[in-house]
């Protein structure tokens, strides 16, 4: 089983996000970069499939040089090799552009199964994995909390609003991982040592035969014009009262008479 994990390096969710002077990007100094949390589940699930069925796990990412660190983390967890598409022309591209880069790289990377996090917690785009599957003409199953690969197919449990669907897809297929699918392992010290020697290839758009005007900022069909911070909520009222009952009664009054939502 040849498994490819699509991985993104993102700011840690504890990071206080600040907007850069260009107003279209965030300040990157003081940001702690980590592997996208949903991708940790993807790496773990890929490793479990490999451990059960044999095969190879390749980590594929688009990003700047610093993304090497996230790939190394996945290698330390047990993945076999990494590929980083590092090209300044991909900056400012949109999700579809990124998907085109990944899809092109995947055409040169053997794969029966592609695994990705359900979304990256920076752009919250939910878009790249589905677009990659569409571009490769393979089926996709999103938000998977359980899967089983057998006889050229994958059977996935996918979460939807208020329930679960059991979906079967023909391989090659792509699925995205939702929290709850597994408990990602930590990289062991020997794993970290070994990861340093595992192959990590770097490629640019030229190597992939891609035109920057197609996939970079120039080709972006969804462009960030401005970023802003959501308006601060004005500090509210502390509801007073002698007893918990009195406080509850006052809150109910405020919700009815002031907020008028009950």
């Amino acid at each position, binding site marked *: 089983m040849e498994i490819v994990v699509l991985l993104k390096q993102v700011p840690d969710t504890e990071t206080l996000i600040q907007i850069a002077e260009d107003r279209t990007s965030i300040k990157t100094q003081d940001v702690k970069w980590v592997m996208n949390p949903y991708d940790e589940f993807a790496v773990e699930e890929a490793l479990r499939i490999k451990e059960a069925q044999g095969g190879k796990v390749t980590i594929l990412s688009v990003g700047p040089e610093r993304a090497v660190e996230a790939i190394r983390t996945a290698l330390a967890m047990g993945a076999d090799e990494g590929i980083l598409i590092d090209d300044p022309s991909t900056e400012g591209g949109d999700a579809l552009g990124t998907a085109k880069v990944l899809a092109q790289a995947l055409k040169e990377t053997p794969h029966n199964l592609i695994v990705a996090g359900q979304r990256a*917690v920076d752009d919250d785009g939910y878009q790249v994995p589905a677009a*990659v599957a569409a571009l490769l003409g393979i089926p996709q199953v999103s938000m998977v909390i359980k899967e089983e690969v057998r006889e050229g197919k994958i059977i996935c449990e996918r979460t939807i609003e208020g329930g679960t669907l059991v979906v079967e897809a023909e391989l090659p297929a792509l699925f995205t991982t939702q929290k709850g699918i597994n408990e990602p392992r930590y990289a062991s010290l020997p794993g970290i040592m070994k990861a340093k020697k595992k192959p990590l290839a770097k490629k640019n758009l030229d190597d992939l035969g891609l035109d920057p005007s197609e996939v970079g900022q120039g080709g972006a069909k969804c462009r960030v014009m401005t970023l802003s911070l959501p308006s601060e909520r004005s500090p509210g009222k502390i*509801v007073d009262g002698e007893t918990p009952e009195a406080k509850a009664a006052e809150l109910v009054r405020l919700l009815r008479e002031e907020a008028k939502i009950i």
Partner: protein
Amino acid sequence: MAQGVLVVAEQVGGAFRKIAYEAVSEGRRVADTLGESLTGVVLGSGIEAIAPELGKYGADKVLVGDDPALADYTTDAYANVVCDIVRECDPKVLLLGASMGGKDLSARVAAHLDTGLAMDCVSLRVDGDALIATRPMFGGKVLAEVSVQGTPQIAAIRPNVMEVVEAERAADVEKISVNIGVVKTKLLEKRVETAAKMDLTEADIIVSGGRGMGGPDFSLLEELAEVLGGTVGASRSAVDEGWRPQSDQVGQTGKVVSPSLYIACGISGAIQHLAGMGTSKYIVAINKDPEAPIFKKADYGIVEDLFNVVPALTAQFRKLER
């Protein structure tokens, strides 16, 4: 030349979901700004009868793809059919709901049509011919204004945010034949968790519990939610402790919600939780620690042990009900 606004209206089991009305209402607004007509699309099996309902929210026309092959949602079949309809109608703008199904449907459709998509939008406007969308990023810590290009310009709108507006007209309903194309996925089974539990992303009132709950017994919150007609959520710590299922988690690594009323009980207010519920219309915080960051975001705060206040609140609301 591309013209008109097309809205895919999601239905489940022969009934439109609320997001369908939200999307059609928003579609009407965009169509009016552009001076264009609005067409709704309904896909499913045995759903022809519900199609005229979209006229109530402003659809001039409704295309109905009523076919046994569409009985169950699969991303590839639905994406193929939506792409065919778009190629046929050539709309300027395509709107979908960013429900769990709508997210992968819109992403797949945009990739097939090689056009721009703004995902999970909280507002839309039109500037000349361009569709401009506002969408939260970083779990709501940042709002991005994005311009969508290509034909059609696609936006998937976040559930529970856009207003449902009635704009009654007699929609012209047209049945279309569909070809699901190459489909490599199959639905084997559908499991409904608890029929009564509304999904957090669609709930109008959410009562959430955090570490302060001290254990997996959320019955106090469930009682309060029940009397309010709301649903129960949880913070990441409560989910990580195994007290609540993952589907209840609100926050940057869980669900991003925007109910009318969010009642946070025993939740301190970690930055990643605040990001996930900061767009709620009203926030109530109940916490015994007066220094808890949640109070900075709350419209109303009660500094008190939640185990004392929550039952009192439930009793108060019960009294109102009578």
